[in-house]
């Protein structure tokens, strides 16, 4: 049956309510099983040996002593993970990142691994592996890596996207450009121009659960993998390709996931665990330590961004331009490109140009982190927008409202917008009591806007109706923050039954068709679309069964409030049949009743947010305190408003950490100096105030209920909002994130000295 995904204004019964999540009790009683909570009989402990050098050629690895240690069952190096990528450069990078081949490219790069009977033996075995390194010059800073004469990280990389094909390899893997109009002409029309350079440091997603998996490879070529991941189907594809397996012979089960934020969309340890299990002939459990999580997984890009914006006296922006340089770790990336696409997406611009450079450095391979690349671009742009408003003598909110993108605006990255929420979030922020609250001494208020594309993608869902009338919903998008609750609400809504009758699970890769990962804020958006489609397919069968029971044409049967109803006066005597009654009779009317759906969830509605915050700065120490924080964001339709609020609050808190404190600190030797939660300090409970939220609902026309993704946009505005607040409080423009006390103090002192 053709599925019509278009929005239809409907009165909701279940959607929009706030029931308790189906996986809740297990999570408050300690019974929920996360990556490291699963074990198999006879399992070995896997451990990974990592390079202590930022950049080194591997001349040889001697594993013989480790192999001879009693209790060691397998030792592997890159030789045990041969290159089967067949010219697929992106997959080769994933393989090389899982296990270094000819060179170690960052402090923490895996070079060998062991499987042993217990953790202590595995640790001892690592110490017995001898790696002969030839240390090479390294570079970790984004601007230094672009300079002439910088140590070359990969001599096979020639900059793409230049007019002339380069003849020499480079640390810049790609140049990209977006925009329209003529910025030169636009700046010529400007009365005021602000031009600034900004830097942001590298941060980690900081999920509390380290990567963990249990791999079990059988000698018949089949395998099972239990793993914490945001996308078990993608992990299956990647692992199968790297191990030379058929995908259908590798069953991947996603555990409960202890946070991901984009960081669990990439394989690191999983192919290694599978290779160890294959060699040892036993199950292998591999759990990263926190030190490994920081040194080898995760991080977002460090950036260097130049912004130039011009406006007329009346407040109209005439031109906007940005150059964005993003680190991608030691491999080719596409992070600056995303930054270049998002930088000016909030605004209606006649002349706009953004250029992105992907920069290789000796740091871990950059991974997605919640709206990847957008927060840094927003920091630079929204800081400059604030400064320009000041020069114009305009209120920061009014200036943004005047230039905000609208329905029909051609976005800076190309597409023309449909109905969007940037204007409404700004109007709501303007009217919010927070904007009018008085400020104390040394306090400043800042606000900023943010944009994220959102994503749809491939989605497959099964909805099975039990003979007792209860409904099991099997989805393939990993639940990272309450989506089993929201998808159960959607199934209940569509079928017209109670939420308590629906039980949602995340199915493994052998039980359901392919699903893209839970990324791009797609979990609830795409799986709710697939759930609605599956429910409608089930309703078609329910109607058929009722028609069969009544012996009337199916076209005369409608589905309302969980019941089949015979339509028409001639059927006046027929009592409505409930879903439960039809299900109970299913054995005699044609067998099990189910609805299946496979679709590409196109039409993810773009998302906008406006944040307001108040910060107090201690001018003596440069320390800061967040006094008040407000998030206004468009959700399209909040399926479970409490979890939508949670996404808003969580993104804001991560942004606060990024803005004020979090950063990777590398020594001159290229080694990470703060690979732990003590020295890489994420916000704790006493650092934050309550985080106020306001949900706007501007329906997405391309979803039956109007849903937009909500997970990522909330991390986009905080860097800029806080930078604007700190700048207002301290009286000096902050251009380097994080705004740690030493940086703020230095900025204040530099301003005093003039």
């Amino acid at each position, binding site marked *: 049956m053709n599925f019509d995904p278009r929005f239809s204004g409907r009165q909701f019964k279940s959607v929009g309510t*706030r029931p*308790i*999540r189906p*996986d*809740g*009790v297990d*999570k*408050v*009683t*300690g*019974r*929920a*099983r*996360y990556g*490291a*909570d699963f*074990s198999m009989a006879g399992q070995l402990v896997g451990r990974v040996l990592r390079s202590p050098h930022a950049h080194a050629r591997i001349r040889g690895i001697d594993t013989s002593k480790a192999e001879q240690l009693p209790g060691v069952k397998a030792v592997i190096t890159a030789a045990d993970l041969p290159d089967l990528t067949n010219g697929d450069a992106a997959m080769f990078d994933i393989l090389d990142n899982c296990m270094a081949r000819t060179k170690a490219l960052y402090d923490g790069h895996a070079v060998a691994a062991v499987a042993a009977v217990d*953790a*202590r033996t595995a640790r001892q075995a690592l110490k017995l592996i001898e790696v002969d390194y030839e240390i090479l010059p390294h570079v970790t800073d984004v601007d230094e890596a672009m300079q002439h004469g910088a140590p070359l990280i990969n001599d096979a990389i020639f900059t793409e996207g230049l007019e002339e094909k380069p003849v020499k390899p480079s640390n810049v893997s790609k140049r990209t450009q977006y925009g329209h109009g003529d910025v030169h002409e636009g700046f010529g029309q400007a009365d005021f121009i602000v031009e600034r350079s900004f830097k942001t440091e590298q941060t980690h*997603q*900081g*999920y*509390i*659960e*380290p990567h963990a998996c249990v791999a079990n490879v059988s000698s018949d070529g089949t395998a099972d993998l239990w793993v914490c991941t945001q996308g078990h189907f993608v992990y299956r594809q990647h692992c199968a390709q790297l191990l030379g397996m058929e995908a259908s012979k590798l069953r991947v089960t996603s555990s*409960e*996931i*202890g*946070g*991901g*934020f984009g960081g669990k969309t990439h394989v690191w340890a999983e192919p290694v665990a599978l290779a160890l299990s294959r060699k040892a002939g036993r199950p292998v459990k591999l*759990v990263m*330590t*926190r030190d490994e999580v920081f040194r080898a997984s995760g991080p977002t890009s460090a950036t260097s961004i130049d912004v130039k914006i011009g406006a007329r006296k009346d407040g109209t922006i005439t031109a906007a331009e940005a150059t964005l340089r993003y680190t991608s770790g030691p491999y080719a990336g596409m992070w600056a490109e995303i930054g270049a696409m998002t930088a000016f997406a909030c605004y209606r611009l006649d002349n706009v140009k953004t250029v992105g450079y992907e920069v290789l450095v000796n740091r871990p391979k950059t991974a997605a982190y919640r709206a990847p690349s957008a927060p840094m671009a927003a920091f630079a742009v929204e800081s400059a927008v604030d400064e320009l408003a000041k020069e114009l003598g305009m209120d920061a909110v009014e200036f943004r409202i005047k230039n905000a993108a609208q329905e029909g605006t051609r976005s800076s990255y190309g597409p023309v917008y449909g109905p969007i929420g940037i204007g409404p979030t700004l109007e709501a922020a303007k009217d919010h009591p927070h904007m009018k609250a008085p400020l104390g001494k040394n306090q400043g208020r800042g606000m900023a806007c943010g944009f994220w594309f959102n994503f749809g993608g491939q989605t497959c869902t099964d909805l099975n109706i039990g003979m007792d009338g209860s409904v099991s919903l099997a989805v393939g998008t990993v639940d*990272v*923050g*309450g989506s089993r609750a929201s998808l159960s609400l959607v199934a209940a809504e569509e079928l017209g039954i109670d939420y308590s009758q629906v039980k949602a699970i995340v199915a493994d890769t052998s039980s359901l068709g392919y699903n893209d990962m839970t990324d791009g804020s797609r979990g609830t958006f795409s799986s709710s679309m697939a759930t609605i489609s599956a429910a409608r397919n089930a309703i078609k069968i329910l109607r058929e069964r009722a028609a069969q029971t009544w012996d009337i044409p199916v076209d005369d049967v409608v589905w309302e409030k969980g019941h089949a109803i015979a339509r028409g006066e001639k059927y006046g005597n027929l009592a409505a049949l409930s879903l439960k009654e039809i299900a109970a009779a299913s054995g005699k009317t044609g067998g099990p009743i189910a609805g299946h759906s496979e679709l590409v969830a196109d039409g993810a509605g773009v998302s906008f947010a406006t944040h307001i915050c108040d910060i107090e700065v201690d001018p003596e120490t440069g320390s800061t305190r967040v006094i008040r924080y407000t998030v206004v964001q468009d959700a399209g339709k909040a399926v479970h408003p*409490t*979890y939508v*609020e*949670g*996404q808003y*609050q*969580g993104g*804001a*808190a*991560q942004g606060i950490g990024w803005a004020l404190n979090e950063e990777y600190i590398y020594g001159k030797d290229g080694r990470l100096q703060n690979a*732990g*939660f*003590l020295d890489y300090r*994420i*916000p*704790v*409970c*006493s*650092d*934050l105030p*309550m*985080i106020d939220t306001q949900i706007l609902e501007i329906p997405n026309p391309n979803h039956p209920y109007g849903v937009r993704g909500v997970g990522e946009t909330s991390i986009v505005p905080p860097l800029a909002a806080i930078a604007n607040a700190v700048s207002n409080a301290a009286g000096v423009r902050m251009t380097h994130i994080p705004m740690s006390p030493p940086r703020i103090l230095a900025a204040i002192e530099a301003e005093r000295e003039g």
Partner: protein
Amino acid sequence: MAGVAVSTTINGDNYEYLCQPDETLLDVLRDRLGLTGAKEGCGTGDCGACSVILDNRLVCSCLVLGAEAEGRTIETVEGMAQGDQLHTLQQKFLEHAALQCGICTPGFLIAAKDLLAKNPDPSEEEIRFGLAGNLCRCTGYDKIVRAVQDAATVMKGA
């Protein structure tokens, strides 16, 4: 290396186990006794996901040796509910959606239980500082603080 014989009380039940001298209480709970409610987020006492109550004192079980549990009393998240009756804190965490991924939840529940045992009527600031040893990356703490406030109100009235 010879194992150390330990006899201890966990959630009111007597447990006897052998552990290595360098093995943490967290590893014993998780790997030897199958009590995987306490989580290892860092192994260095920075995240609080492994929080347990040891003789009425809140500790990170990753910083306690398994051998140190000899003759002592340990409370873990698995002991909070009475049969199928959830502890008030567990119920309030559900009602307030004070968890998203839930990995930090056992540690927060134990830390909050310890906090309310010592201070049944905490201010917001006291809750925030009382739970500052537990990291949550998902929620921004707002709903956790509200859940603890609500639980404290209910428990006072009980």
